[in-house]
């Protein structure tokens, strides 16, 4: 049962990985990166429930934090670069 769920999560991560590879603009890649981070957090939650241990959830928390910081700093980078091109 749990193997089937892990397989379905891998399908979801793979479909958004294709968008991550072929996205034409930078923002498409950032959106796909955010979605991949959330899907990988749920994959880590399922794996740590099967292992039945408390300590593996720290990695999932750090994963969510890294996805948030990456999205914020790339969106800021977009705006600053646009203002620079207008000069």
């Amino acid at each position: 049962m749990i193997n089937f769920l892990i397989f379905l999560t891998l399908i979801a991560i793979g479909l958004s990985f294709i968008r991550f590879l072929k996205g034409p603009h930078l923002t498409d890649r950032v959106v796909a990166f955010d979605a991949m981070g959330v899907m990988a957090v749920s994959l880590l939650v399922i794996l740590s429930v099967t292992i039945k241990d408390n300590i593996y959830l720290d990695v999932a928390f750090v994963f969510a934090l890294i996805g948030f910081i990456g999205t914020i700093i790339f969106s800021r980078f977009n705006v600053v670069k646009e203002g620079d091109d207008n000069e």
Partner: protein
Amino acid sequence: MSIKQKISIQTISVSFVVSIMIIILLGILLNFTTQFQPTLGSDLLAINANSTETANAVTSVVTYFRGFDTLGEVTILFLSIFGVSLGLEGFKEKLNIFSYQNTLLKIGVDTLFPIIILFGIYVIVHGHLSPGGGFQGGVIIASGFLLMFLAKGDDFSINHKILELVESLSGAGFILIALLGLLVTDRFLGNFIPIGEVGELFSGGIIPLIYIFVGIKVSAEITALLEYFIRIKDVR
């Protein structure tokens, strides 16, 4: 040679390399689980069970058996921050690059900041019980400060003198604990505090103290590094 021929040759060579790598990986992974025999790990676990008795054996390797290497790593990090500050300190007026105000981001980061700092302190303090430790918790705290720099713009700034003072005091505390160990037990970084029960919060001798000092030092250093990199002299 035209561009189309270049692209086709590049694509063919890249796909050739990829196929060879996949074949080698398949060959390695097919007998990955059968030939695995623990040799060095069991020895280290036996030494750990005799001497320091932490729940997380990696911690006792990093701070107790190889504690001198940890001191060297912290010194290298300090030297790199010193070089960056030597190169970027001299400008008079410094403004944030990301000076773009947004009310939603300010409120959200104000909500998130205590949670991130508390999680970093949890990772540092529970370093001998669960994965993590000084370096990881310190960088988590520094990422919380990075979010504040991004959200608040020029309203949020940190005095560099206080950061340098905190960093120097924590480095001095590390060396002081190591010298106390040399004084009491005839070994640099020796253990002079009684070891408690395995699995409790107050256990493991001097390992939590060393991790607390390393965590404070690394968080101050990485915060100073990001603060130097994010500000620039001439803003349009």
